């Protein structure tokens, strides 16, 4: 049984190299999401998530909708455990796979195959499972000999394929996706769409952020609208 619970969660990003808030910055806060502020020591921070409480239970497919800077990605990173909340508590039960950006932390100087191997080692799986997954990923990305070249030589589409395969082919209970449904060229995109559909079906909890409400309404059974780090609406 997977579960995600957020209790009065607030997330502040400290901003360095900015001494104080200027009029321009104050104006900027009106035009984009998030709240730029000072703390007691006059340090500048952006309040990305503002006192959110949330319960997500097994079987739920959640869509998070909001404008730029509304806190969608920050919320996913909190759930993924990449960020720790400034205040409040995040409780996650179940393994997580997150597809948060196209770079996916790939190391440019390593080859595709080395990136796959290191990522699988990171999962702490036994060597038998690692080998099986390695073969599965190699088949899926279909990059041929490019897999043996450094990732820095890849086109953006090839990088996407690799990152996507790494993110989805290792089984997890909770899947987090950040505006990432179109992958690589037409053929691979079709394959990826099938995989994504299967992923959504197989996962215990699925959360996706998007600015496309239509996609969210098709995939998800619950939509959360975020604005300036607060939940504006849930349906």
């Amino acid at each position, binding site marked *: 049984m997977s579960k995600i619970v957020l209790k009065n969660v607030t997330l502040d990003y400290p901003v360095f190299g900015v001494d104080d808030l200027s009029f321009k910055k104050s104006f900027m806060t009106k035009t984009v999401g998030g709240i730029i502020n000072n703390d007691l020591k006059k340090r500048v921070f952006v309040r990305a998530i503002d006192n959110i409480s949330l319960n997500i239970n097994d079987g739920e497919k959640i869509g998070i909708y909001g404008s730029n800077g509304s806190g969608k990605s920050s919320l996913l990173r909190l759930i993924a455990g990449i960020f720790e909340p400034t205040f409040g508590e995040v409780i996650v039960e179940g393994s997580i796979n997150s597809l948060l950006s196209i770079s996916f*932390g790939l190391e440019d100087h390593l080859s595709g195959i080395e990136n796959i191997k290191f990522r699988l080692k990171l999962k702490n799986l036994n060597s038998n499972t690692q080998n099986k997954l390695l073969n599965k990923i190699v088949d899926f990305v279909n990059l041929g000999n490019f897999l043996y070249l450094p990732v820095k030589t890849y086109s953006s589409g090839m990088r996407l394929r690799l990152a996507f395969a790494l993110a989805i082919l290792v089984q997890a209970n909770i899947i987090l996706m950040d505006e990432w449904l179109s992958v690589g060229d037409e053929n691979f995109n079709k394959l990826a769409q099938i995989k994504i559909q299967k992923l959504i079906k197989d996962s215990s909890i699925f959360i996706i952020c998007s600015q496309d409400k239509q996609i969210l309404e098709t995939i998800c059974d619950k939509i959360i609208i975020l604005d300036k780090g607060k939940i504006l609406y849930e349906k």
Partner: protein
Amino acid sequence: MIKILAESILNYKLWFAWAWNDILQRYRRSILGPFWITISSATVILCLGFIYSSMLNVPLENYIPWLGVGLILWYFFSSIIIEGTNLFTEHEGLMKEIRINYLIFIFRVLIRNVIILFHNMIIIACIILYFDIGLNFNILLFIPGIILCSISAFAVIGICGIICARYRDVSHIITNFTQLLFFLTPIIWKPNLIEGRKLLIVDFNPLFYFLNIVRNPLINLEVGLISWVVSLIITILLIVIFFIFFYLYRKKIVFWL
């Protein structure tokens, strides 16, 4: 904290493979590969050995073992400090994309430097054999010496990494200071060459004690209890400081990148 440390240790296959791969990457497409490290170190030791032994008027057979082992250990210490300053910036991409135990990064940097140190051990073996340094069981004392140095190195990498992730100027300060530290540490000179108050630069130099516990057993010199005690105290202090820093700031590091 213990859970985080245990989890990172259990992931030894990852950081060892990562460290080994880092070295292979550095020497990719070269014929001799990582042995370039050994060759370049040996060249420096020979050149400096001949020049400084005559400048300082010290017999070559006394000077080369002192310089050789000292310089090889210095490479280890200085790389640890300098690579520690880039610890988190080097792993920024990963830290922002997946949940990962940060201690794994420290092990990666530590182990790649230990591997380089062991490559250079070939030179030390050659020095011991060529200069016919009397071999006895005391030589084995270098093993606990290296272990103590590595534990300290773990803490130094972590402390430098945390401070330099927050304050970017510090990495430049540390890099410059490390260059100065080379001349302040008895590597190309021997402590008996200076006297009086100038000896304070030896007495208050922690690296001197760490050098002693590894270098002296290898070149058949007495280590002295004081070196072991000081090294042990510094190691404990560094580990305590590191874990306090890590406990206080580990949640914030990702925001500093």
